């Protein structure tokens, strides 16, 4: 009678289909056995106690991709301890920890970890162990999708569905399995540093080919880039600020009597006066190109900033019509 331990990574537990197929496989290979099933986390946290020298075989199922199968030494040691002599460990084992494995005392054969007999009994070879060895290749074949990457979530799809209905139901099942990863009630172990990959490693793995880049920026001749860069050091920003100041001075000359300067003091005066500006025809004729007879009239000054030219003296003032009252406290607020 063989004692077999099926150890599952927590992410596999919800995949009934997979677990069943593994059990089926075990049944095929053993006639007389007892099967115990545990979740690896419970074992490593010590919530479940396993006894020394108990099992003839351990199957470890971990759906993560090969690079994330690394085991702590303590776990390798634990596996060693609970296996009987000649006991074997199969499944999703790390491929790059052979040294740790050998140092623990295992022998590695075709990716299977075997706990050798103590030296004095090595001579007493038993043929019965051959049985399991022979079946090893078939185990691997059946579970090819399990051990290779990407892991087995899609396993259900590998057998071609015969009918569309079946496809739909498999898709639903697959979705449900996937959804289990999104549950909010994450166990505490999920907050261990070990359960997250290091995001900085992602940077070195990022592929930098085929990125979309803009068509070359070709500014029309003589036209500077209008917008100053963030942290501008070339002076454009100062130039812009200067322009804004100039604009305010221009406005001030328009608003002459109301605001002599843009200082806070003047602003307070405006506030008191509840400034209202009456644009009279003669005011406009001095600066406004819209008045007939003036050359270069663009007709847009009165329409608001959206339509005014670069350098229009009215920039920053509300839209107006000649003769219309322009209220500077247009929004019921101080200026």
């Amino acid at each position, binding site marked *: 009678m063989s004692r077999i331990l099926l150890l599952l990574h927590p992410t596999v537990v919800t995949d009934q289909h997979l677990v069943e197929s593994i059990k089926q496989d075990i049944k095929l290979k053993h006639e007389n056995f007892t099967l115990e099933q545990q979740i690896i986390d419970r074992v490593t946290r010590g919530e479940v106690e396993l006894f020394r020298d108990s099992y003839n075989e351990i199957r470890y199922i971990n759906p993560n991709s090969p690079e994330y199968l690394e085991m702590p030494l303590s776990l390798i040691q634990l596996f060693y301890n609970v296996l009987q002599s000649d006991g074997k460990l199969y499944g999703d084992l790390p491929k790059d920890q052979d040294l740790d494995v050998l140092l623990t005392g295992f022998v590695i054969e075709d990716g299977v970890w075997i706990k050798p007999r103590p030296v004095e009994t090595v001579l007493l070879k038993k043929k019965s162990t051959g049985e399991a060895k022979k079946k090893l290749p078939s185990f691997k074949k059946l579970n090819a999708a399990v051990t290779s990457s990407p892991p087995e979530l899609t396993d259900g799809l590998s057998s071609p569905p015969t009918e569309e209905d079946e496809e739909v139901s498999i898709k639903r099942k697959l979705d449900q399995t996937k959804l289990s990863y999104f549950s909010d009630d994450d166990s505490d172990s999920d907050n261990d540093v070990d359960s*997250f990959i290091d*995001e900085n490693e992602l940077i070195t793995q990022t592929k930098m080919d085929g990125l*979309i880049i*803009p068509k*070359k920026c070709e500014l029309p001749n003589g036209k500077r880039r209008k*917008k100053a860069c963030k942290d501008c050091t070339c002076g454009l920003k100062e130039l812009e600020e200067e322009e804004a100041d100039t604009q*305010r001075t221009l406005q001030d000359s328009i608003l002459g009597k109301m605001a002599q300067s843009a200082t806070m003091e003047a602003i307070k005066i405006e506030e008191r006066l509840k400034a209202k500006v009456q644009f009279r025809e003669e005011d406009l004729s001095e600066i406004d190109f819209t008045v007939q007879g003036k050359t270069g009239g663009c007709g847009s000054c009165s329409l608001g900033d959206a339509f005014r030219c670069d350098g229009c003296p009215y920039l920053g003032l*509300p839209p107006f019509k000649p003769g219309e009252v322009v209220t500077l406290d247009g929004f019921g607020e101080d200026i």
Partner: protein
Amino acid sequence: MGQGDITILYGSETGNAEEYARYLKHTLGTYRLKSTLSSLDEFPLKKLITDTAFLIIICSTTGQGELPRNAKKFMKFILKRKLPNDLFQHLYLTTFGLGDSSYSKFNYAIKKIHTRMTQLGCQELSPRSEADEVSPEGVDGFYVEWEAQVVQSLLKFFPNTTKLEEASVPMPQFKVTISNHGIETNGDVASQVKFSEDDSINIGTVVENKRITSQDHFQDVRDFKIKSEDLQYLPGDTISLYPCNHDQDVEALLEVQPHWAQIADRPLLIKNAPHIEGGIVKNLTLRTLLKYHLDIMSIPRRSFFALLWHFCDSSTEDGQREQEKLKEFGSFEEPEDLYDYANRPRRSILETILEFQNNLVIPIAYILDLFPLIKPRFFSIASRPSASEVEIIVAIVEYKTIIRRIRRGLCTRWLKSLQPGDEIRFSIQKSSFSYSENKPPIIMVAPGTGIAPMKSVIDEVLHENTEQELYLFFGCRFQEKDHLTESFWQAEYPNLHIFNCFSRDKGYKYKYVQDGLFDQYKLIGKLILEENAKIFVCGSSGKMPQQVKITFSEILKKYNSITIEEAQRYILQMEDNGRYKEDAW
């Protein structure tokens, strides 16, 4: 594949990434492609399995290669080691990153997201792009090229779709309607306003709102104290505040949309209401929605115009001209014009609507699609841990542009108006800064209101009464006007060393914090290399954090006679190990 299978997610700190995401949604809408738009953290990730076939992620990189605040939860999820490699095998993915190549960790956030999502099985929808803000083409240049490819690739999957008639408007994502039931509320709501429960929210009362710069100083800096209960925070943590609009601004908007004014106080219904941080106002009416949730004082973005022009009546000559202008602002054809009109003078959405009021009729149904939401504002906590009080230091933002009305920050304007006794809502966010482990010396660099988190650390260390050494390099303009630290610590403490730098006082020893640091290179070098000191830099973003970092590299170079490259590498290592923390805004 259904029409609802396109998901656009963004990670955005300042709103730029969100703006491009909104614009993309709009563009897809013009091809009759319906998409779902959300921030990375607010999207129920299960929907990536059940409701998504095409995933488009737009994400900026902030600070030292970090993810924006509303993308962190998402990142944490995808980093889980246990996720299988084919989890997202059904997804077609493309990504767009916003970054600044003058920072060493250029576009790190989108690199991480893209690489990890590909590891998890995503297939390529169309090539990705990493936009560079400081390139001559700007982010727009990258976006336009990238968007064209996204559209082209999607159209292959939806061969039967056609481009909408230009004049027709895509359906709103968040449809707002007036409820036929329910009672009209009293227009004046301020006294009885309630918000839906959000368990992260604390309610507090303003205890003090005090100006701590002299009256003749150009800037009004406030020291706020808020009383509350059961608070839990540590030095370095931040609080978020939820500002609202002023009543007269809301009123001004209602006035120029007369069809809104009539129904402003009737109950509203929202289909697919978006998640609103901090909870949504309970007695939801057009007026309360505008006041508490819609950011009508923000600068209108391109996506705003791309939708707004549809609501401009073009039946008159004036209307036609205005519609054309709005449409132009909503396109990429004359980006400079939009910049000059909106961004440079910091024009608000409200002011824009007022300018175009004669021909604009905005349907209620679209207001949530049109106006951005008011976002919470974050402030470093300035008090030492306390269960009953929290203190912040805020510079009131006021400045002038060519528009004559003074520009004011929505939040600081609201804050300035708060009186002792007023109730406010806030929440607390943890930071990763740890000052206490092994009690290393801390070098603190804090120009202006960057002093806030330093004050929290210093007060706590002084309270603990340990011998942990603190070195504060404080910078401001004038010793007499904005010398914020003066009111904080009157007594002398043997372990608190303050180096003041006054940039506008003639003849003072140190002008900028960099000067102070460099002059003290022997002390600083020894603290860093021999005493394992931590560095904490806080203040407004821009040149300061970079200049300070260069200064530290130069100090190490001079102190230890090493090359500048070695010194820079050492600083970089300090960043990676959490010994060098920068908090810039």
